[in-house]
């Protein structure tokens, strides 16, 4: 390739990539925008817009069950995401840095976790958690949040492990070795070198875990206990009577809160002038 063609290709590609990215983001947000519009629907059915009004938002005050379900989901999502990220990150680092005979077995287990149909997890976890909670007397497992967290964490642990491993594998371990050579305690090496290196993967894993948990329906509907119906289970079960616009209103409020939180983070970071790794660290609270 000649230098000339190189110079021509560069600006074109550089202009096409962001355009493509914008298109894909528009694609991702397209149905969400519809839902925001439809949350102002005053009709009986979410999917059929009749007229504009804010009645659907008022339903949130009349039906405590809506906010209860959302709170169950948010609480579970946060705990499950942190738990899966911690377990998965440690496992992923071990997989990338301490390979041995055990690696194949462990990877096999992770593959099995991610390939097992959700309905099987659901059917099997329910009696198991009852067994742990009732027969073994570990009353912890009678708690709705604990049960949901357990159910939601399985797939996420596998996903975080994969991503963290993929981040570190093949990257030279010489920094870590140098640190160890300088007699830094292992924990310090881990905190100062390995973890920052893995951080984008950790952040991605955390976000994915939270997302999976928030959308988990099948396992949730089996393991939930009285007083802990999560949001997706509520929405699915409400199909029988026809979804109301108030469900879109809940989604809109959640979206606005999320975007507001992200905007605050962006503002703070812009002021601090941080790099992406720093952003990652800030969001992950690490």
């Amino acid at each position, binding site marked *: 390739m000649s230098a000339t063609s190189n110079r021509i*290709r*560069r600006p074109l590609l550089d202009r096409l*990539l962001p355009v493509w*990215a914008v298109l894909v*983001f528009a694609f*991702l947000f*397209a*149905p969400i925008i*519809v*839902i925001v519009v*439809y949350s102002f629907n005053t009709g009986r059915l979410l*999917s059929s817009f009749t007229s504009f009004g804010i009645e659907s938002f008022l339903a949130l005050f009349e039906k405590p069950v809506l906010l209860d379900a959302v709170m169950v989901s948010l609480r579970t999502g946060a705990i499950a995401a942190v738990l899966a990220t911690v377990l998965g990150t*440690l*496992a992923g680092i*071990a997989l990338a840095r301490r390979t*041995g005979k*055990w690696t194949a077995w462990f990877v096999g*287990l992770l*593959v099995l*976790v*991610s*390939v*097992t*149909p959700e*309905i*099987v*997890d659901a*059917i099997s976890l329910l*009696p*198991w958690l009852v067994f742990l909670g009732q027969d073994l007397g570990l009353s912890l497992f009678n708690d709705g949040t604990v049960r949901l967290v*357990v159910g939601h*964490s399985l*797939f996420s*642990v596998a*996903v975080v492990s994969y*991503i963290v*491993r*993929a*981040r570190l594998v*093949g990257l030279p371990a010489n920094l*870590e*070795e140098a640190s*160890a050579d300088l007699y830094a305690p*292992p924990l310090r090496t881990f905190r100062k070198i390995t973890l920052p290196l893995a951080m*984008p993967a950790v952040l*991605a894993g955390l*976000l*994915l875990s939270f*997302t999976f948990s928030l959308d988990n329906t099948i396992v949730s509907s089996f393991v939930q206990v009285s007083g802990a119906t999560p949001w*997706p289970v509520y929405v699915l079960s409400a199909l029988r009577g026809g*979804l109301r616009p108030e469900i879109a209103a809940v*989604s809109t409020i959640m*979206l606005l809160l999320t975007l507001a939180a*992200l905007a605050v*983070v962006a503002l703070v*970071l812009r002021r601090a002038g941080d790099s*992406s790794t720093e*952003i*990652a660290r*800030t969001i992950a609270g690490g």
Partner: protein
Amino acid sequence: MRNLRLPGFALAIPAWVWLAVFFIAPVGVVFWYSFGYKPGLFGTHANDKLSLDRYLEVLTPTFFDTFVATMWIALAGTALCLVIGGPVAYWMAVKSPPAWRGLLLALVLVPFWTNFLVRTIGWQVILAPEGWASQAAQAIGLPAFDILYTRAAVLLGVVYNYLPLMILPLYVAFDRVGEPLREASRDLGANRLRTFWRVTLPLARPGIIVGVLLVYIPLMGDYITATVLGGAKGNMVGQMVAAQFQTAQNWALGSAMAVTLILVIVLSAGVVGALLWLVSWPMRRANRLVLGEVGS
């Protein structure tokens, strides 16, 4: 490393214990059911007589046909996710302003914090015969379009819902390549395409494989995503497993189906992996080269 007295897998122990207690033990029990039978109308499983009969019942033409259809959807969906999500992940990790990257990462996932069924309704409003997209098409003189319940709608639903599972691992993969390495490559006279092909892609390979598997494997077991927009055309084999556990309340047969399904998915993923491995042979050569330079 020499300071660590712990065995190599020490860091994996917490995850291992967690999965042993909450996955291996309970799921192992359910897999055991596959050797049993359904004891009458209102029972779901019994294991006092053991046999492999359930596995014979699984292997029907319907299971095979549905599995093949499932695989096509999963392969096409995975390929589309890679083609659509790849450039986005690359742009985010390499070309976007560094300060924005964490936020962009979060923005990819924010749409999925809206409930699945609610998102689906959003798509239905857009894609319905008299929906937004059709009206927009007619407004600019195109014919009305009706895409719901077609194969295209199957793929749209699948790509939409699985795209983040591709973009995030790819982002992480491209991000780790790092600007200095690419600069060095260009300084050594490689053009951009060559740098991408010989440096960026090989280093991103583990992440690409993870992205592909993270879309393909869960998609093979999924049975809802493809049907919500694609209707009957989105029928997938996971539906048969769920139908045994739920509607038929035959956990023995459901379990045998699940085991069979897991085996064939792993097998098919192995085949896909082997193909990728063969195709990426030139990349691996480059990979060795690059790592040799960096490591030395």
